[in-house]
């Protein structure tokens, strides 16, 4: 199974509903985004005038460059297939690619906030959320689109898909040939592959030729300088000892559970 998202640029009107719904759903700080909409043009593509949009988000790549860069200590994590119940155990750092649904996820508790993954991502799909600090990292935690995993597991569509006013965002299993997303791939939906790379982005775009040409010409990224990414990651991991990372994990978990209650109390006192 590989979750993927299609953005149909023939339907997209560039309204930004997707980006704002995501902000509301996931409490993304004002300054940051888990997804975005850029407008390109009007400019000439060959002889033709064109203008279209780049509604971007994490590509949950088939071969993500961000995952291997995470310097956090690894743990054994057991994954369960949502449908079959099949399990598998992998050794993962604080970010990984889910072996069953193909999404790329982050464990906020173990993230040391070094930003290596964000630096590595050629799509700028990750950022460090400064609101999320703890004993492990006072710099914040890496954050990005999860393909709304908690919503999807609860049987809902991703927040951006739900709100999309024209049905331009379609979510589903790219490995299922009958899925709507697979049909789009057959029709020619493609990901924005990095220049000279082979990451296999699973957020894919479909549109008129001139619009796709404009999208690719303006937003095909380069691979990051991994040497630099790694030096930074190494330094960060040295500065944040493993023991500190473990400390307080359980306790903070408890605090989290109280979050809603405490929040409400605070509000009602106003």
């Amino acid at each position, binding site marked *: 199974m590989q979750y993927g998202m299609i953005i149909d640029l023939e339907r997209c009107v*560039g309204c930004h509903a997707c980006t704002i719904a995501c902000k509301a759903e996931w409490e993304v700080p004002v300054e940051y985004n888990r997804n975005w909409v850029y407008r390109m043009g009007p400019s000439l593509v060959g002889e033709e005038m064109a203008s279209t949009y780049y509604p971007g988000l994490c590509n949950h790549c088939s071969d993500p460059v961000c995952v291997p860069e995470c310097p956090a200590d690894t743990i054994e994590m057991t994954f369960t297939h949502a449908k079959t119940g099949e399990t598998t155990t992998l050794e993962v750092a604080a970010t990984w690619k889910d072996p069953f649904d193909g999404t790329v996820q982050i464990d906020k508790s173990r993230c040391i906030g070094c930003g290596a993954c964000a630096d590595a991502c050629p799509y700028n799909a990750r950022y460090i959320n400064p609101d*999320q600090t703890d004993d492990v990292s006072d710099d914040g935690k890496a954050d990005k689109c999860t393909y709304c995993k908690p919503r999807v597991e609860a049987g809902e569509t991703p927040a951006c898909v739900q709100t999309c006013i024209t049905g331009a965002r379609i979510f589903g299993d790219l490995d299922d040939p009958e899925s709507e997303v697979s049909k789009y791939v057959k029709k020619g939906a493609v990901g924005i592959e990095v220049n000279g790379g082979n990451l296999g982005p699973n957020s894919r775009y479909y549109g008129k030729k001139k619009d796709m040409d404009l999208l690719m010409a303006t937003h095909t990224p380069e691979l990051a300088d991994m040497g630099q990414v790694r030096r930074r990651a190494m330094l960060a991991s040295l500065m944040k000892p493993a023991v500190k990372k473990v400390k307080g994990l359980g*306790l903070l978990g408890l605090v989290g559970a109280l979050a809603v209650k405490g929040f409400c109390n605070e509000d009602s006192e106003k």
Partner: protein
Amino acid sequence: MAFNLTRRKFLQSASLAAVALPLSDAIASETGIEPSPFEPKGTVKDETVVGGVCEMCFWRCQLVGKKRGDRLVKLEGNPHSIDNGSSICARGNAGVQLLYDPDRLKYPLKNVGERGNPKWKRISWEEALDECGSKLKAIEEKYGAHGISVFPHGSSAKYPMHFFERTVGTHNVSEASFFQCRGIRDTAYLATIGMAPGEYVDMPNAKVIFLLGGHFGENIHVSHIKQYIKGLQNGAKLVVVDPRYSASAAKSDIWVQIKPGTDTAFLLAIMNYLISNNKHNAEFIDEYGDGFDEFKEGITDWTLEKAAKECEIPAEQIKEVAELLAANAPNVSIHPGRHVSWYGNDFQRQRALACLTGVLGAFFVKGGWVPAKTPKVGKTSWAKKEHDDEFNLNMDEEEEPLFPYSPPGTPTELIRDTALSGKPYPIKGCVIWGQNPIQTIPGQEKMKDVLRQMDFVMCVDVMPTDITMWADILLPEASYLERYDLIKTGTQWDFADSHQQYIAPRIPLAEPMFERRDQVYITNEIAKRMGYESDIPVQSNKELVEKDLLVAGLTLEQIIKEGGIHIQKGQDPYTVPEDFEVIFYNEDIEDAGFPGIPTYQPVEQPPKGYARLLYGRVPVHTFNRTQNNVWLNKSMPENPVWINDAVATALGLKDGDMVGFINQDGVKSRTKTTVKTTPGIRKDSVYMAHGYGSANPLMSVGVNAGVDDTSLISKITVDPETGAHGMRNNFIQLIKDDKILAIPASV
């Protein structure tokens, strides 16, 4: 960006609040352990509250709220909706940021400084209402009811507007939605087909969609956009007429890059071509047309070549559009437009659009102009008292209207000129409710002078918009999320689906915070103080809604049980009403002294060195109303000025350069914005989004963000038939590094 720190505190997320909890509390808790305290939980498990009706714009999508404790954390489309469904736009999604905006008006305020440069003192509601009541009563007694002017906008402004108009009895009401927006469209269609057209085009089932200036994608109304995209997906051809390569032009099959102001010439040439080549719908015209022969005769001058020259487009392209329309008639959507206050020749253009629809027989047919059959609900408000036309500024001495096709109310310029001259009578009171005349009405300095000479100015709003700086008393209103209010009605958005109707009253999703109050409370309290207590029609917003629902046999209780929306069986809209007619040549218009056949009136051209200022919308803002919303501000923090790339090169400008503006009257922009160079705009025009550049420092996010286009629209044009404004007849030069850049005539 200093505001971010305070904002973050204000908008504290659940997880942040958690970090602030004493650890001991956490340990003592017996609630379960969550693996990651930082991961926001999403809203799936939050409580859902129903009954919201959006008013981030005026399309009014139906909402549900996601609530965590007392706090509304997210808005979504109501899944029961047959209008917007579970979709809402960026603005709709950002409604929670309006609700909790720390800059929102919180308490009644009294201006102890001066108008335009206020110093605010918090006062009690009692004091504020006493002041409003006594000042307005004094004006009424001294000058008469007509001494009070009203500038309303939005659903909450209807009730107070009716109080002043119907009960107190002033004609001097200027609604922005009419005189600066769609009023011309409505009266032009009334004079042609006897109905205001709304935006009732059956786009999902059309073979051609024809947009004159419509820029969907930049302009967003959810179910309308659904109709548009469904039409395109179903294979409709799209014709977009616009001097700019708009968001719609980018999806078009034919983009007509017309010279600004010449649209009527273009439309007349299409119609003349169709009629003279026998490609019009003769059968339809025989049955429903009136004055067709005079019309046909009257437009024969308009050859393709003549229009091509006037519009600066190829004759071949006009023919191509005409042929496309003819080949697909009558299943064509000739869009009536919405904001049509463009050039002061707009009534004639709107008449021409209605006539084109008639020439093609595209009324009440699949894909044509088809009004939805919506359910009836009540319209409870203040009772109409007898008020004669003695003080109606739109009536001359012979009791003939000056602007016979004026939309309801009194043309803005008549009110302002009267206020400034004191003739024929003084206008000394001003009630501004939800409207921002400073950034809505052209001639900002004139508006300020009008306000300066008032004895009393009161504003009711949710945000400290620019107009609120001019108030003596400023009252904080409950937002659309905190009050019972209007009942939105409609039908399923695609007429190809089974016919259904819906009734969705606005039910609050949150309690008003601080001292915010709704319109029925505020109006009634002022009415009591002005001696109109016995005329009060309802005691609360809730009672108003209950009464109006009763007409449809419904109650709020039942609607809530039904998930916030009542849905019932609808009716087929594709039947031509018996008395329907299309008045091609309108004798009444001619008798009133205007052309009875749609007529092209050329508009003033830019003086040498200037470009015409065009404006439009962006999808994340509703004029100035949403400028202070942090999420929306961050999405499009300024309004770049579009300049033709060849012109930009000649001026030495590149993308991202900061520029200011000066117009033909020497008015300079207060702020600057960035340059966007593109081949997608004509060389004689520049374009920017409307609504930016707020001047009020209390709008801590929106203040000075981008450029206020209205500030540059100082030359006032009035459409002669309607008295509504034309706002695209101002011309500007750019200022970079204090140097004025003249726009080259040719590059």
